[in-house]
């Protein structure tokens, strides 16, 4: 496994600007807000006839997906293309070779192709950090999900969606529901929500799917939906990570749905104007009832649109942070 490290030493340049985007943990409210503001301005571009901007023209973005994810890969690809970057998609299976060795080989190959940014998806926690520490200087690394650790762009697109629909974070109660234990999304969401000053963050799930000492992150813990959803403004559902679960943690999918699935009935417990988020892909009838997912309070499709803008924002900010670091080093040298 990878060594734990202080992410901000890696992901920020000497002026405190983003040069990699690895985790929402430890980032300031100011910086998270800057990401949201930048993403907001990119949203407008999606409405135009010509949706391309020249910001990353001449830049090569390599999507390194060691773990399959069509959805995340395609939004990163589209985000890079909207910024006029050249995009390389690499699906790399981890099972065939020993990890450390193959990773290093891959990095060296991409270095030889003069890639400027790696978007990394990996089933091991800390993989993006490891790559950020071992890439050549000036290459920006964006974490597109690493093991159980973090999925920062997903969390930030959720924050953007919440801000656009609810405005002020400080008045909100947000509940994250489902398989918290295996969820990198939940971890990144909790850090972002806390930093942005949400009044109350709750996690709701069965005891077996709640990490021990989760309270230490500053959240209220509930095992009962009827209690946990009371007075909630934002319901953030998680996907049941079937592929990550050994059966002992969960009696059955139908049992899970009965207790923790978001039905119309359960949603009625939350505030009347509560909104529903889900990172997708949805397991209909496992975590969420179809009529809720497709209903007027669901923001699931807004999340997809906002995800594109957030990815454009962190990509351009990271490239800009790298370039400024390079200039500073040049001046000091």
């Amino acid at each position, binding site marked *: 496994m990878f060594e734990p490290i202080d992410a901000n030493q890696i992901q920020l340049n000497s002026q405190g600007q983003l040069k990699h985007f690895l985790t929402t943990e430890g980032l300031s409210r100011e910086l998270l807000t800057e990401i949201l503001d930048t993403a907001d*301005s990119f949203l407008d571009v999606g409405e135009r006839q010509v949706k391309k901007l*020249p910001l990353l023209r001449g830049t090569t973005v390599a999507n390194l997906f060691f773990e399959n994810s069509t959805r995340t890969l395609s939004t990163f690809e589209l985000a890079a293309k909207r910024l006029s970057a050249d995009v390389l998609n690499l699906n790399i299976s981890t099972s065939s070779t020993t990890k450390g060795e193959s990773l290093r080989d891959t990095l060296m190959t991409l270095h030889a192709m003069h890639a400027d940014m790696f978007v990394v998806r990996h089933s091991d926690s800390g993989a993006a950090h490891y790559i950020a520490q071992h890439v050549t200087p000036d290459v920006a690394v964006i974490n597109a999900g690493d093991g159980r650790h973090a999925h920062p762009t997903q969390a930030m697109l959720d924050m953007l969606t919440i801000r656009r629909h609810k405005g002020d974070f400080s008045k909100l109660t947000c509940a994250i529901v489902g398989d918290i234990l295996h969820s990198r999304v939940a971890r990144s969401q909790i850090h972002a929500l806390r930093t942005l000053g949400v009044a109350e963050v709750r996690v709701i799930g069965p005891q077996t799917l709640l990490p021990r000492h989760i309270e230490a992150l500053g959240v209220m813990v509930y095992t009962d939906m009827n209690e946990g959803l009371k007075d909630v403004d934002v319901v953030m559902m998680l996907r049941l990570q079937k592929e990550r679960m050994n059966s002992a943690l969960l009696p059955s999918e139908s049992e899970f749905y009965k207790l923790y699935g978001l039905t119309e009935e359960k949603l009625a417990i939350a505030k009347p104007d509560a909104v529903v988020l889900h990172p997708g892909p949805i397991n209909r009838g496992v975590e969420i009832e179809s009529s809720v997912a497709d209903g007027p309070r669901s923001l699931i499709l807004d999340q997809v649109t906002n995800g594109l803008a957030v990815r454009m924002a962190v990509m*351009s900010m990271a490239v*800009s942070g790298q370039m*400024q670091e390079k*200039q500073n080093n040049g001046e000091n040298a």
Partner: protein
Amino acid sequence: MTSGMLNVEALLDKMSAELKALISQRQIEDPLMIGIRTGGVWLAERLHHQLGLQSPLGVMDITFYRDDFTQVGLNPRVQPTKLPCDTEGRHILLVDDVIMSGRTIRAALNEIFDYGRPASVSLITLLDLQRRQLPIQADVVGGTLALGPDQQVKLTGPEPLSLEISQRT
């Protein structure tokens, strides 16, 4: 240029008259005026009113089209470009406060063309600092100004509009 010539109101009156002449000389009908944030928008609002143009004013933020973003970074508060209508086939009057290197106008032209193919683009600026790095010229200019290497000029507004020359820090 004397300090008296930095009277923005007087410059605006002159520009308005010249612009009116330009429009009739080029036989432009229903032009689309676009101001570049922030100073260009203030000026465009005044000119748009003085000329009584029909089409509503467009507003452009060229930050995403700058050629120096990797050096100066992104301004997170980029405000959206808002054009009231299609630019396709339109005669565009592009308004900015100051033209110096020409790079802002280059970026604005690129952005305009992402919205469609205009019939023509005319450039109107309050001041020309004459330090061009690109082959771009204004059609209507309020005044020219030769600044010392350590001087800069800034338009403040929107009410009242005034020009300030200061030492670069």
